[in-house]
C-alpha cells in the first residue's frame, strides 16, 4: 500500500507548480487570444459591410496611415493630451500631497475628501461638466461671465476644447496622483530632513535635492499609471465632444471606436489599436527602465 501511495503523492507534488500557475496561464491566454486576433485583423482589408473586399494586405492599413494627415493629427492630439494631463496632474498632485504631508486629523480628512472625484465614473464626470459648461444654464459659464469673460465656448470651440477636456481629466485624476505621492512622502526616512533642518538648509534646496530625488520612484510609478490610461482616453472626450469640433480631439480610442462601430472597418480599427499598443509599450518600457535604473542606483548607494 505504502509503495503505491508514495509515487502518487510525489506526482501530486510535481504537478502542484503547474496547477498553481494555471490561473496565470489562463489569464495570459485570455489576453493573448484577442491580441493576436487583432494583430491578424490589422493586416486585412476588412469592412464588415463589404465582405467581398476582405483580403490579406499585409501592412497596407499601416502604410495608408503614414500618408494620412488625419492619422498624424490623431498621434499629435493623443500625445499632447497625455503630456498635458499627466504634467498638470503631477504638479497639482505633488503640491497637494506636500500640503497634506503632515499627519493631522484635518489633513487626513481633506485627503479622503479629495479622493471623491476619483469615485466618479469618468463618463459621468464628462456629462456633469458638459452641463456645468452649458452656456445657457451652466454654473461654470455663469462664473466666467461674472469674471468678465463672455462667449467662452468651452468644449464646443476648437480653441478651448482641449483645455476643457484636460480640465475634466485633471479634476477626476489629480487625486489619484495625490494619494500615491502622499503615501510616498509619508514613507520617506526622516533623518535626511532632520539633518537638513539642523544645518539650516533652505527649503527650496531640500525640495529639489532631497525630497524630489527620494520621491522619484513614486512619481515614476504614478506617472506610468496615468500615462497608460491617458493615452487611451475615450470616456471623457467622446461624451463631451465625440472627437470634435472638427478633428480637434480625435484621439486614438475615439477614432478606433468610430472606425469599428460606425464604419465597421475592422482592419483600420485594429491597425489603430495596434499602433496605440506599440506607443503604450514603448512609453511604459521607457518608464520601467528609468525606474529600474533608480532602484539599482539606490542599491548601489546602500
Amino acid at each position: 500500500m505504502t509503495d503505491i501511495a508514495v509515487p502518487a503523492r510525489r506526482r501530486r507534488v510535481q504537478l502542484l507548480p503547474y496547477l498553481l500557475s494555471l490561473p496565470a496561464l489562463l489569464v495570459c491566454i485570455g489576453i493573448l487570444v484577442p491580441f493576436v486576433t487583432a494583430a491578424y485583423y490589422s493586416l486585412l482589408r476588412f469592412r464588415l459591410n463589404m465582405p467581398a473586399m476582405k483580403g490579406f494586405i499585409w501592412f497596407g492599413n499601416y502604410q495608408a496611415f503614414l500618408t494620412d494627415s488625419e492619422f498624424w493629427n490623431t498621434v499629435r492630439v493623443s500625445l499632447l493630451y497625455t503630456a498635458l494631463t499627466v504634467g498638470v496632474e503631477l504638479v497639482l498632485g505633488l503640491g497637494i500631497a506636500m500640503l497634506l504631508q503632515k499627519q493631522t486629523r484635518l489633513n487626513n480628512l481633506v485627503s479622503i475628501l479629495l479622493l471623491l472625484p476619483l469615485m466618479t465614473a469618468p463618463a459621468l464626470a464628462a456629462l456633469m461638466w458638459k452641463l456645468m459648461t452649458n452656456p445657457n444654464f451652466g454654473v461654470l459659464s455663469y462664473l466666467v461671465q461674472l469674471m468678465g469673460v463672455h462667449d467662452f465656448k468651452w468644449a464646443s470651440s476648437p480653441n478651448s476644447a482641449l483645455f476643457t477636456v484636460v480640465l475634466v481629466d485633471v479634476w477626476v485624476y489629480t487625486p489619484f496622483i495625490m494619494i500615491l505621492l502622499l503615501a510616498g512622502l509619508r514613507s520617506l526616512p526622516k533623518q535626511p530632513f532632520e539633518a537638513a533642518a539642523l544645518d539650516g538648509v533652505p527649503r527650496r534646496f531640500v525640495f529639489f535635492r532631497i525630497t524630489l530625488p527620494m520621491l522619484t520612484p513614486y512619481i515614476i510609478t504614478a506617472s506610468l499609471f496615468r500615462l497608460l490610461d491617458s493615452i487611451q482616453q475615450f470616456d471623457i472626450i467622446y461624451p463631451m465632444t465625440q472627437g470634435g469640433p472638427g478633428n480637434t480631439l480625435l484621439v486614438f480610442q475615439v477614432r478606433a471606436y468610430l472606425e469599428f462601430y460606425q464604419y465597421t472597418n475592422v482592419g483600420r480599427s485594429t491597425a489603430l489599436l495596434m499602433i496605440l499598443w506599440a506607443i503604450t509599450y514603448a512609453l511604459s518600457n521607457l518608464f520601467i527602465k528609468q525606474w529600474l535604473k533608480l532602484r539599482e542606483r539606490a542599491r548601489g548607494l546602500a
Partner: protein
Amino acid sequence: MSEKAKDFFAAFKAGRMSRRELMSGAGKLGVTAASANIMLNAAGTDAMAADFDWMKFKGNKLHLLLNKHPYADAMIADLDNFKKMTGMDVTYDIFPEDVYFDKVTAALSSKSSQYDAFMTGAYMTWTYGPAGWIEDLNAYIKDPKKTNPNYNWDDVLPGLRASTAWNGVPGGALGSADAKQWCIPWGFELNSITYNRKMYDKAKVEPPKNMPELLDTAAKLTKDLGGPYGIGVRGSRSWASIHPGFLSGYANYGQKDLTVEGGKLKAAMNTAESKAYHKMFVSMIQDSGPKNWSTYTWYQVGTDLGAGASATIFDADILGYFMNGGDNKEKGNLGFHGFAANPNAKAPTPNVWIWSLAMNSAGKQKDAAWYFMQWASSTEHDMFGARKMDFVNPVRSSVWKDEEFRGRIAKSYPGYVEQYDVSAPGSKIYFTAQPLFFDVTTQWAETLQKMVAKQVPVDEGLDQLAASIDKQLKDAGLG
C-alpha cells in the same frame, strides 16, 4: 374581459355599430376609457386572427432588441394582444439611443441568435444588409402562407417602402425592382420648421418661407427676444447632424451627396450651388444658432425649444410634436410649418428618418419573428398607436386618413397635420445608398464644424471634403 363586453367590441369592429353607440354602450357595461381602448384593440386583434393561423407558432418565445422610444412604448402597451392572439411569449431588452446602435452592431456582428427582431433605421441597413446580418423581408411579405391576407403592405406609404429597400449595389436607387426589403417601416419623421408662436408674435415675425427668410427671421429673433436664440439645428460630429434639416434644405436646392456615373461614385458637395447653400447654413448658425452648437444632438435641439431657450428648430417634425406636450415649459405654444428652403422650389423635400423593424439573420425562429413584425406593423397596431398613444408619424396611409387620429392631432397640436400634408409628398431618403454612408456623413459633419468655427472657409472646406471622400471611395473600390 367579460364575454358580453367582448361581443360588444367585436360588433363595433365588424361595422355593426357606430363609435358613439360603442362608447355609450361601453359606459353602461362599466368599462373605463382606458380599458375600452385595450378592449377595442383586442377586438381588432380577434378580427385579424379570423383569416389567418396566428397560433401556428404557439409556445415560441421571441426576444426583441428595442430603442427607448414612444414607438416602442406603444408596442409594449399593445403587446398582450399579440401574445394572446399567437400564444407566443415576447421579451425584450430596451436601451437608450446613445448606446442602442452599438448594442445592435455588437449583437449582429457576433452572429448571436439572442435577438429575433430589432428596431433599426433605414441607413443602418446599408451596413447590416450587405454584411449578411439581416433578412430580405420580400420573402415573407410576398408569401401568402407567412403573411396574413389583411396585412395590406401597399397601404404603407410608398416613399417609406422604397426608402427601406435597396438592391445592395453602391449608388443603386432605393426601391428599385431588384431591391431587397431590408426592414419594415414602423414610424417615421420628416424635417420641417417648428417655432414658438409666442416668441414669433412678440418679435412680430412670420414663419419663414425659405432659407434666406429663415436667416433673416432667426437673426431678428435672436436680436429682439433678448435671451432665446433664433434657430436650433444639430451640430455634433456625427452623421446624425447631416440627415435632418441640413440635408432636407440641401435636397431642396437640388443638390446631392454623391453622383453615380458608370457605376462609380463621386462626391458632389463642392458644386457652386452646394457651396452657396453651405454658406447660408454656416452663417445662420454663426449668427443665430446655439453657442455650443458643435455639441448639439437632437436632444439639445428639442429640449432648448421645449424650455424656451430657442425660438425655432429646423429638425424632425415629431421632435416639435413631443416638445409641444409633456411637462415642457413651452407646451402648447409651438407651431408647425412645412418648409421649402429653396425660394424657387415648388414644395418641401424633407429627408426622412424611418424607425423600422428588421429580422436577425442569425435568429433561430424567423417565421415566428415575422409573425411579430407583421403584427407590429399592421394597420390595427398602427391605428392603435396613432389614436391612443404617441405613435407619430404613422407609416400607413389609411391611418393618416383616419378622422379620429387627425382630429386628435389637430386639437392638441394645431398646424401639425397641415405641416405634414404639405411636407409628406416630397419626403423620402435623399442620400445615396452606399456602404460608406457613415464615413461620408461623419466627415461632412466634421467639415461643417470647421466651417462654423472659421477654421476653414466654406469653399476650401468643401473642396477638401470632396477630395477626401473621392479618395475613400476609390480606396474602397467604389469610386
